[in-house]
């Protein structure tokens, strides 16, 4: 019953959005009608760019994001573990962190030129800091008793890291991973508006530049939204796994 009710509400909400959209489109020279956007989707699918551009964007995100994960996890763990490292690096991190990755765009183009490297670099920058800081926080706040118990039972330091430190810090690391993926997906669209000629960001800027095709612009925007939702949903699902669920409960024993 609850389920049917919520589906009904979602359908009603969607219908309301469509009605408002349709009415607004009738008044506007720029905004296309919903139906035109649907035809825009069909056109993109027919030309083959729908799938190609989606994969181009996802592939850039994957490389930039994984590079960030590969560097930010060990760096964050070191920051969390060594208070001295934290003190020394704090100022640098606090200065770099608030700079939008997009502000690096001119430098990125100079350094990496035209091609995939520049957007990947920007995605890397956007994803790096949330993972770094949440990993550091996760490692720093592992209760001391867990580490002592780990040392008591495990023979080696590497076993304590692998069997205690990492699992204990993981719920917070996962928050960073999720935030970073969201940022990476925001950054790729902006980064693709320069320096490359594929991807969903390129689709949007190209559709506008080549003939003011706002139906294709909105189709691209909706696609970006849908993929973002799927990416976040995947990591959100990870939080629900029993292994991690303890870290996301308010009454968790930490």
């Amino acid at each position: 019953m609850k389920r049917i009710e919520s589906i009904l509400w979602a359908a009603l909400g969607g219908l309301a959005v469509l009605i408002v959209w349709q009415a607004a489109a009738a008044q506007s020279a720029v905004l296309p009608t919903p139906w035109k956007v649907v035809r825009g989707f069909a056109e993109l699918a027919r030309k083959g760019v729908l799938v190609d551009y989606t994969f181009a964007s996802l592939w850039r995100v994957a490389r930039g994001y994984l590079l960030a994960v590969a560097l930010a996890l060990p760096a964050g763990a070191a920051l969390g573990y060594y208070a001295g490292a934290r003190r020394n690096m704090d100022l640098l991190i606090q200065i770099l962190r608030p700079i939008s990755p997009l502000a690096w765009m001119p430098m990125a183009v100079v350094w990496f030129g035209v091609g995939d490297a520049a957007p990947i670099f920007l995605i890397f920058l956007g994803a790096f800091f949330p993972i770094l800081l949440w990993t550091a926080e996760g490692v720093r706040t592992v209760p001391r008793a867990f580490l002592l118990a780990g040392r008591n039972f495990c023979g080696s330091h590497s076993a304590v890291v692998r069997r205690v430190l990492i699992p204990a810090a993981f719920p917070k690391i996962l928050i960073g991973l999720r935030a970073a993926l969201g940022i990476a997906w925001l950054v790729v669209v902006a980064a693709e508006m320069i320096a490359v000629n594929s991807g969903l960001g390129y689709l949007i800027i190209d559709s506008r530049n080549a003939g003011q095709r706002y139906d294709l612009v909105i189709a691209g925007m909706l696609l970006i939204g849908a993929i973002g939702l799927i990416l976040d949903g995947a990591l959100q699902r990870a939080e629900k796994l029993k292994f991690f669920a303890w870290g996301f409960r308010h009454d968790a024993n930490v």
Partner: protein
Amino acid sequence: MSTAPALPGIDAHPKLSVRGLYLSFDDGGKPRPILDGVDLTVEAGEFVCLVGPSGCGKSTLLHVLGGFLQPTSGSVEIDGEEVRGPDPRRIFVFQESAVFPWLTVEGNIGFGLTHLPGRERAERIAHYIDLVGLGGFERAFPHQLSGGMKQRLEVARALAVNPDVLYMDEPFASLDYITRMEMRRELLRIWQRERKTILLVTHDIDEAVQLGDRVLVLSARPARIRQTLEIPMPHPRDAGAPETIRLRSRILDEIGVAKNI
């Protein structure tokens, strides 16, 4: 170091031997003494309780014995062998529950048993689940357990690796009164079955008198052993018996607490 000749039929070494333990922390350039010459000997299978005024360093002493802290000078020996760090033969049971929340009850108890073959490991886990009365909760995670059950889980995890010595740092301090009583009884039952050597730090004098073969009273910081009280009474002990009350009173006098408030 020990050159005492072993007498025939008598083990030359006590289980635990602590000599001249001194520890000071650096407090802004000048040393702040925490332990001031602690000497103690514990025989195998003995249950010894350490009591003392709060902040006296009794918990720190236990951390040194467990190998988590290096003393400034003095030695800790187990079976005549110098303690150089934590070791699964001597398990520390923490004040706040240190069971791992990402592992199930089984996973926690099996944490120190990864070297065993699968079947033996499973048997060992089943045995200790049974011993501490956590049957039916094998697959539960710690956040699904009550405080008392978590503490029992921690005791089971410690016992499962078959240690010689258990160091318990106010293990029941965070439990409610009734659960604490139950846990004391449980611990005694387990100790009588498994005959581990136990050193238990507590600020609860009743607990010490109820559990210990011996109660060591520590001084205020820097800690020394002020007094050793033998408690020859058999278990179960009556908390209201005149002997118990007399002992409790003596310990209170030693610590220097006003009895009549």
